[in-house]
């Protein structure tokens, strides 16, 4: 297949349509508007599909709830402040075991923040920004190609585990263009999902709700969710490694900062500095085991994020205080350069007296 040059945001839209997404509900916010625009142009024209520009983010997430109840593949997207508004709805989706894909092309925060790329929504995404004991799968792409691939995977995971899935990108990935190819030719025709609420003719009615007055019943629901979360942890934890085999120093980075770190590592290697990288693809479930395993051979770790140190806490949990972890971060929407990261690597390398390649 030939490659096409596409914006990250529009690549998500096309990938979603090719994954069988039938409904999209959204409310405009920079830096993800190209996605809403793409769905307005392309999804609304398709038979049996719906695009609605809702009156607010809260309305949009509740439309997602409705469409998911009806058993179709559904998506919404926003950027940081808008995602905060959707948290109540996400909690309800999790409670009712309803699949949905929620795209966050995050920007600088807190508050209304800045419209440039940041990774400061890591806590919100991985800890659950809404109330209650729930989890969402969180996928972190680092290129336009991965935005498309992981959008497709997000829909599959959502249906497989009946869970909301968050695609955590950022303003830089969304607004940049890169050559990509779509791995799925045409939209697939999907069967109507089980448990869908589409009229109870000829069968007992189904009630899907988030409230019960019996604590024991609610406890049973939590246990059932928890068992599924354990399964997701076991089956779906995904990561990529880059030149870790002989690494004296391993950088842990995700999304946009992972690609920036990769550039820095290439240059560091050229100078004989043995640096590698671990990039989590699923932020939840987080690859604790892999990091722990890497910690057996490598003594120094550097966590690099476009925030003040959020994933850092997960790396600390993984390494159990047995290895030294440094941190470098730029918050607020500042996009660090590979040469800036290289300077941090060089300094650490010298400071810690790490061995150079012969």
């Amino acid at each position, binding site marked *: 297949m030939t490659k096409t040059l596409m914006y990250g945001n529009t690549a998500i839209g096309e990938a979603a349509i090719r994954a069988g997404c039938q409904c999209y509900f959204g409310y405009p916010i*920079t830096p993800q508007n190209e996605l809403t625009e793409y769905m307005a142009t392309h999804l609304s024209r398709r038979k049996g599909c719906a695009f609605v520009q809702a009156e607010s983010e809260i309305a949009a997430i509740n439309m997602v709830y409705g469409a998911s109840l009806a058993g179709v593949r559904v998506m919404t997207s926003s950027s940081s402040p808008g995602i905060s508004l959707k948290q109540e709805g996400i909690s309800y989706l999790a409670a009712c075991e309803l699949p949905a894909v929620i795209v966050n092309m995050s920007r600088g925060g807190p508050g209304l923040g800045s419209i440039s790329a940041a990774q400061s929504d890591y806590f919100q995404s991985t800890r659950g920004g809404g109330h209650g004991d729930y989890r969402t799968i969180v996928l972190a792409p680092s290129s336009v190609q991965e935005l498309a691939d992981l959008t497709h995977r997000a829909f599959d995971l959502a249906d497989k585990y009946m869970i909301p899935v968050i695609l955590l990108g950022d303003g830089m990935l969304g607004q940049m263009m890169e*050559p990509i190819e779509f791995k799925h030719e045409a939209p697939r025709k999907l069967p109507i999902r089980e448990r869908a609420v589409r009229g109870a003719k000829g069968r007992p009615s189904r009630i899907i709700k988030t409230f019960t007055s019996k604590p024991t019943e609610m406890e049973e629901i939590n246990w059932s969710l928890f068992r599924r979360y354990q399964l997701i942890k076991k089956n779906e934890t995904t990561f990529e490694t880059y030149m870790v085999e002989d690494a004296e120093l391993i950088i842990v980075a995700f999304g946009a900062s992972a*690609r920036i770190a990769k550039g820095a590592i*290439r240059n560091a290697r050229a100078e004989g500095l043995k640096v590698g990288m671990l990039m989590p693809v699923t932020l939840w479930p987080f690859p604790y085991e892999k990091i722990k395993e890497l910690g057996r051979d490598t003594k120094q770790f550097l966590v690099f994020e476009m925030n003040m140190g959020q994933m850092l806490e997960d790396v600390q949990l993984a390494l159990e205080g047995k290895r030294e972890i440094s941190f470098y971060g730029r918050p607020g929407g500042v996009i660090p350069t590979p040469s800036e990261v290289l300077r941090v690597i060089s300094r650490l390398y010298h400071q810690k007296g790490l061995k150079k390649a012969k």
Partner: protein
Amino acid sequence: MLIKTIFAGFGGQGVLSMGLNLAQAAMTEGKEVTYLPSYGAEVRGGTANCTVTISDEEIASPVASSPEFVVALNQPSLVRFQNQIQSGGIFFINSSITEARTTRGDIELIEVPASEMAEKMGNPKGVNTVMLGAFIKKSNLVSLDSLLKGLEDSFKKKPKLIDINKKALKMGFDLF
């Protein structure tokens, strides 16, 4: 090879499509490429810019803090970007409507009277295309052929404009 170029000018001068055409051509040549338009509190008539990165290997960041090349189609862009260019880099300016400043001795200045040339050939909107022709001749980033093919694609819906833009591109290319 890792080369970053910033294209800048007034909104409406076609700086974003210049970058896009270059990115498309680089892609058809099998190179790694990223294209990043500027967005922000820009206003109509204000400046627009985009960054194109072309490389042989995976591109770490689409952002350019010190680009190898800058193409400035107007005076505000000239002022804004002249200090960002990497030492030894090339500064392409639209000399028809800018006052060349030689405050930096460590960069090469290429003056292209793009507005005059476009005007003279009866295609005043072709400023960006004339400039792009001159740019690829000097920068050697992509071949003229891939760019000509790319123009055919980008004007697929307006076939009348293909020839006049090809002419503008070649005119810029033949300037040097």
